[in-house]
């Protein structure tokens, strides 16, 4: 059982602020400033999880969020890196990947049967007998994966923040803060990102001075914000707890540091084996001593520092130094020229074998903690995503950036610095270079730069790495995430997967939750040994986002659905309307019953809100030319104040949309298009206008104008009560566009009739919506006016066989097929679709859209099949029950030869059958008397 050691300057825990949380049903006490990992370590929990494949016990290893060992389920969220996750009062924490518990995991037997699970084992075994795989697969699947996906909503929506600083610094270590201080003091807007919520390693004033310098200079330091990818642009994406940052900077400084690497020897994954980062942070920041009998493996100063830290905290320490001479030290024993050959233990380390590098056997040393110290892999991943090139550096024994894209800088450990001094100098140089490239004045930069360049050279001793692997019984892990061992890598290479990229795909090394942070060096070196190559000849695998884990919710952002309401929406709601989606719009589906509403329109008067229609004003000396080219119809002869139905085609001759075009001035037209097509049609029309470079302005006034359609035999009486203007049949003819005041509001009144009755489509400034609606409803009251919804409108238009583009037509429908050859003025010089239609025979299309009536009560759904002698030959696109006709009426695609009155055909859907009878003319008022009246 470990416990807190005495207070020390620089510790992060607030002993005066206790916190308690739930850990697998028991209460664990911690302090503010603790992470889950440190609190559990203080509580004596040494096993933080079970491994992915073999269910081996694992403990705290890095304390920096760089390995998979401490992933836990926290408040329902899986795979939280508990070593860096701050404790919160009352949080619920559970370990993963073990049943019934991590301490006693029944799947520990998998470790014993690991010989059955070589890399790619699912390709190799359980193939014979044939039933074997079917039996085994569900079991394997149930064992695969990490954590449990939460079923409930697990977080609040995340925001997206876009930042455009002059300089973005990634990493707030010495190099990053120095770069930020220089850039900001040169007057550049500077942002610094760091994944950590606390900077420094637990020593007072470690980077505090630099942090203060950067902040005072005006740099914005975003802690707890992890850059996880660099994308084209370059765009840097970073995740914070509640938001996604998208950052475009003019200059990028990568001060991403390095990730400490472990050593490979038998049982190198036992709890109690950890990196010096973990030992240092546990002792200095959180005051937890991870072991009383410590062995430190190192080849440089870092190990001796850690040894001193542990010694000071009360541990008995032995340093194993790879260098032949080692170094003298007081307070602990040094074994020079040696390495760790193997480790032993079951649920934690018990002893290590210390021997000569590359040789078998050695002296046994009992211990409860083994610290691997000072082997660094520069975090070049984000840098590599910018296109930076890496090359092997002998002194650093690592791949370092050798060429950088323009406006990209690297400083600190990522660029090969191993001392604090070199890192800081490199950071300052990067900041100054960015400032100078961006034209910021900096008087003494010349002299300073020279001085800094001398300091920036890393003059430390060359790195000596431990042997690629150890000797003895027990698994030697390269990859902790996916449980890939040295032996498995050897096997994979022998099978022909003899490069890092192939090994990655076959064995999944570097592909796990840590994305290669903890295993890249070991994988590269084991690969190079197995292939007979060298470390220098085995570069790391390609870097791809995400470099740190990102929750899907952060990428998904806010879950928001656009929702549009017309200015009369509240009136509909007050009238008891049920609403439906029409694109982004909420439109009344019905107020009472569709039948009642249809009845009102056919016998009295009805009112529908059609504000959602797309509306354009097309104005300019060449407006006629634009319309003549956009539509197959003719508009040059359209008289002022007249309206024409227009069909819009693309150049293949396919119907895009339909609507009305009203001439409201010599050079001005008012154009309506289908609700759902408005945005696309706006782009279509303005695109052609731009391409043809016509002197025309196209203005989308869809939102500016509200509109209602007043329709029914009594519509004229209602109109005359609303306006002083003459609305007689002679003054306001069918297909006329008239400007008049309606209910005191200036309006454009279009006499058109989608529903097949005398009708007025009244367009007016949308802010008057409620006033106009109320006035019309009041004026219509003596005539029994009823508001009608989309469902009634659909019945009404079907009785007239008016098509809905997109509902009744598809991406292949041409005007001839839908019986609108009359709209095509093929003799015009040019229009969109002219050449496409020339290839078609107007008289003999392949299939036709026809009206039909159907027998019986069954309403064929949209998409029901039209069948001929058991073969599919067409489909129903719309059908509704019509009271006026006394039958089902609809539209359907049928073979062209059937397009004559009275042809019967069979409609099928599932077990349903009906007989359709073709009707080539509107069912209701076929002569169109009523809408012209």
């Amino acid at each position, binding site marked *: 059982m470990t416990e807190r050691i005495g207070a020390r300057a620089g510790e992060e825990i607030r002993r005066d602020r206790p916190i308690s949380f739930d850990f697998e049903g028991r209460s664990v006490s911690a302090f503010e400033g603790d992470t889950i990992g440190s609190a559990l370590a203080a509580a004596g929990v040494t096993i933080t999880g079970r491994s992915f494949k073999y269910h081996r016990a694992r403990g705290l290893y890095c304390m920096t969020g760089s390995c998979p060992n401490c992933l836990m389920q926290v408040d329902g969220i899986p795979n939280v890196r508990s070593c860096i996750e701050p404790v919160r009062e009352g949080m619920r924490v559970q370990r993963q990947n073990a049943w019934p518990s991590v301490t006693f995991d029944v799947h520990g037997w998998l470790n014993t049967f690991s010989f059955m699970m070589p890399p790619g084992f699912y390709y190799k075994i359980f193939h014979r007998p044939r039933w074997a795989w079917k039996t085994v697969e569900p079991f394997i699947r149930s064992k695969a994966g990490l954590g449990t996906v939460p079923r409930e909503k697990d977080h609040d929506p995340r925001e997206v923040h876009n930042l455009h600083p002059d300089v973005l610094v990634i990493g707030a270590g010495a190099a990053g803060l120095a770069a930020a201080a220089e850039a900001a003091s040169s007057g550049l807007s500077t942002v610094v990102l760091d994944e950590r919520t606390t900077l420094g390693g637990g020593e007072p004033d470690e980077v505090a001075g630099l942090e203060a310098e950067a902040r005072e200079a005006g740099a914005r330091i975003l802690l707890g914000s992890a850059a996880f990818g660099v994308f084209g642009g370059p*765009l840097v994406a970073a995740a914070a707890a509640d938001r996604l940052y998208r950052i475009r900077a003019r200059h990028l400084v990568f001060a991403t540091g390095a990730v400490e690497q472990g050593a490979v020897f038998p049982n190198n994954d036992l709890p109690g084996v950890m990196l010096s980062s973990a030992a240092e942070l546990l002792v200095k920041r959180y005051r937890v001593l991870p072991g009383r009998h410590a062995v430190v493996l190192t080849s440089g100063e870092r190990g001796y520092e850690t040894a001193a830290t542990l010694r000071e905290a009360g541990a008995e320490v032995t340093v194993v130094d790879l260098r032949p001479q080692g170094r003298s030290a007081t307070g602990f024993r040094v074994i020079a020229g040696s390495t760790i050959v193997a480790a032993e233990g079951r649920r934690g380390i018990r002893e290590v074998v210390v021997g000569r590098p590359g040789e078998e056997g050695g002296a046994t040393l009992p211990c409860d903690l083994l610290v691997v110290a000072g082997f660094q892999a520069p975090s070049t991943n984000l840098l590599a995503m910018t296109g930076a090139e890496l090359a092997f550096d002998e002194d650093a024994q690592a791949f370092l950036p050798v060429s950088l894209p323009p406006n990209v800088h690297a400083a600190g450990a990522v660029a090969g610095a191993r001392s604090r001094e070199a890192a800081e100098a490199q950071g300052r140089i990067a900041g100054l270079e960015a400032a100078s490239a961006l034209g910021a004045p900096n008087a003494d930069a010349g002299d300073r730069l020279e001085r800094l360049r001398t300091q920036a050279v890393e003059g430390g001793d060359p790195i000596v790495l431990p042997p690629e692997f150890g000797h003895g019984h027990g698994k030697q892990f390269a990859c902790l995430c996916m449980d890939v061992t040295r032996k498995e890598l050897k096997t994979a290479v022998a099978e022909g997967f003899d490069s890092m990229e192939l090994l990655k795909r076959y064995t999944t090394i570097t592909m796990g939750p840590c994305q290669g942070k903890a295993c890249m060096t070991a994988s590269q070196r084991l690969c190079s040994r197995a292939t007979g190559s060298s470390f220098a000849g085995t570069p790391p695998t390609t870097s791809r986002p995400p470099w740190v884990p990102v929750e899907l919710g952060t990428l998904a952002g806010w879950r928001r659905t656009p929702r549009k309401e017309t200015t009369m929406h509240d009136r509909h709601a007050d009238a008891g309307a049920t609403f439906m989606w029409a694109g982004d719009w909420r439109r009344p589906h019905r107020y009472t019953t569709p039948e009642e509403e249809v009845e009102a329109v056919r016998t009295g008067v009805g009112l529908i809100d059609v504000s959602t229609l797309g509306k354009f004003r097309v104005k300019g000396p060449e407006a006629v030319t634009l319309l003549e080219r956009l539509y197959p119809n003719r508009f040059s002869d359209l008289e002022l104040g007249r309206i024409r139905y227009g069909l819009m085609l693309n150049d293949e001759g396919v119907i895009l949309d339909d609507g009305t075009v009203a001439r409201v001035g010599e050079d001005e037209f008012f154009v309506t298009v289908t609700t759902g097509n408005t*945005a696309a049609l706006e782009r279509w029309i303005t695109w052609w206008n731009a*391409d043809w470079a016509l002197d025309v302005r196209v203005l*989308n006034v869809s939102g500016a104008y509200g509109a209602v359609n007043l329709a029914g035999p009594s519509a004229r009486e209602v109109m005359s009560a609303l306006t002083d203007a003459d609305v007689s049949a002679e003054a306001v003819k069918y297909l006329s566009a008239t400007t008049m005041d309606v209910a005191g509001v200036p309006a454009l009144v279009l006499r058109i009739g989608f529903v097949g009755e005398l009708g007025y489509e009244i367009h007016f400034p949308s802010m008057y919506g409620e006033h106009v609606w109320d006035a019309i409803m009041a004026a219509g009251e003596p005539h029994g006016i009823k508001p009608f919804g989309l469902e009634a409108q659909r019945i009404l238009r079907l009785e007239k066989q008016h098509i809905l583009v997109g509902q009744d037509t598809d991406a292949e429908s041409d005007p001839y097929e839908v019986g609108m050859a009359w709209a095509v003025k093929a003799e015009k010089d040019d229009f969109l679709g002219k*050449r496409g239609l020339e290839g078609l025979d107007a008289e003999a299309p392949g299939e036709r859209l026809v009206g039909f009536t159907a027998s019986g009560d069954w309403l064929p759904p949209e998409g029901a099949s039209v069948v001929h002698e058991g073969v599919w030959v067409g489909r129903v696109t719309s059908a509704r029950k019509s009271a006026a006709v006394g039958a089902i009426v609809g539209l359907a695609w049928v073979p062209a030869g059937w397009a004559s009155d009275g042809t019967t055909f069979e409609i099928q859907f599932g077990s349903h059958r009906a007989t359709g009878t073709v009707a080539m003319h509107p069912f209701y008022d076929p002569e169109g008397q009523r809408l012209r009246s």
Partner: protein
Amino acid sequence: MTFLIECPNCGPREALEFSYGGERSHRAGPEASETDLAGYLFFRDNVDGWQTEWWAHRDGCRAWFLAERHTKTNEVRRTFRPSDHDEGATDVNVGAGEASQV
């Protein structure tokens, strides 16, 4: 995938604010041959390199304009209004030897 595009009216904005209109092709008019018509309707140059293409600032000023973008790097080196197109200049994606493009 996203990058900045300099709208001739609004300045540099996120590509996500724009609608892509495809490479600038030339419409086969009433006199064009069948081959040219088919080329215009169904074929694109799909260049690997600099391309003149249409963009509309959908969430901004709504204007259509032309951009020269590198299809591999997404670098946009120039944007301009159709009316600003140099007289007599050819689009960068229409080179010699590509006779199918009018």
